[in-house]
């Protein structure tokens, strides 16, 4: 247990960081593409900045916490089923 938990946390943290960076980059790409297609006028930087602020509070960003939540719930569930059911 005392070996598994640190390994688990390290691996999940690596996955979490990669995924959140990837998702953030994707969100930025989406905003830039949208600006290029629809607007083409005004401050591009400001448009992207506003979009990224709303990404900061979006459900998509919070769902990435699932990287931690799902495996931990799975292990807790397995322990319950295996030993206490």
């Amino acid at each position, binding site marked *: *247990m005392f*070996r*598994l*938990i640190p390994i688990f946390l390290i691996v999940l943290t690596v996955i979490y960081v990669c995924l959140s960076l990837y998702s953030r980059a994707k969100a930025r790409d989406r905003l830039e593409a949208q600006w290029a297609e629809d607007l083409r006028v005004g401050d591009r930087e400001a448009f992207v900045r506003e979009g990224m602020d709303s990404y900061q509070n979006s459900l998509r960003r919070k769902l990435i916490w699932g990287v931690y939540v799902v495996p931990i719930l799975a*292990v807790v569930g*397995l*322990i319950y089923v*295996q*030993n*206490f059911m």
Partner: protein
Amino acid sequence: MFAVVRWTFFLVFWAVVAGFLYYTLPQRDVVQVSGTEIIRQDFSGWNRIFYAQADAGNAETINRDLRLINTVRRNGRVMVYRNEDTGFGWPPYFKLDSSNLQAEAQNASRQNDEQWYAITHYGIRSEFLTIYPNATNLSPVDSADVRLIPWFNIVFLTVLLAFVWGIWVRLKRFRENRIDPLFEDA
């Protein structure tokens, strides 16, 4: 000559994969429990990997006591299971309740000759190495000829196959799109 090497390699590779899955995935046997016992087990380099570690929360030592469950199968032959915590190690059964399972098995042994049980286990029995399958669960069944469908294994192997297939296809596409063009001109 090269074909022989190639086929031998693939054969050995798939045999190892199949053997690993056969050893690790849960199976259920229908048995009558005839008794339980505890022996001291002195592990050797040959059979150490076929045993789990000491019970969760305990220290690891060179040798230790091992719980065994003696059973009789439907075909009349005997089977001996070990009963060890897998704890938080491999395989990920997260079994922490070996003592409880031993108590269940002792209770089951009192109904020997009447009640049949499905014993869930992983691993193999080998007399040459003195290794036993590890029992993980014991539950009563209606009769000796009950039909048990391995739902977990069906789902697990399907998902595994889909996963491997997905990676395989992506690798193949990557090679066709990125690597093969490099050699086309040459």
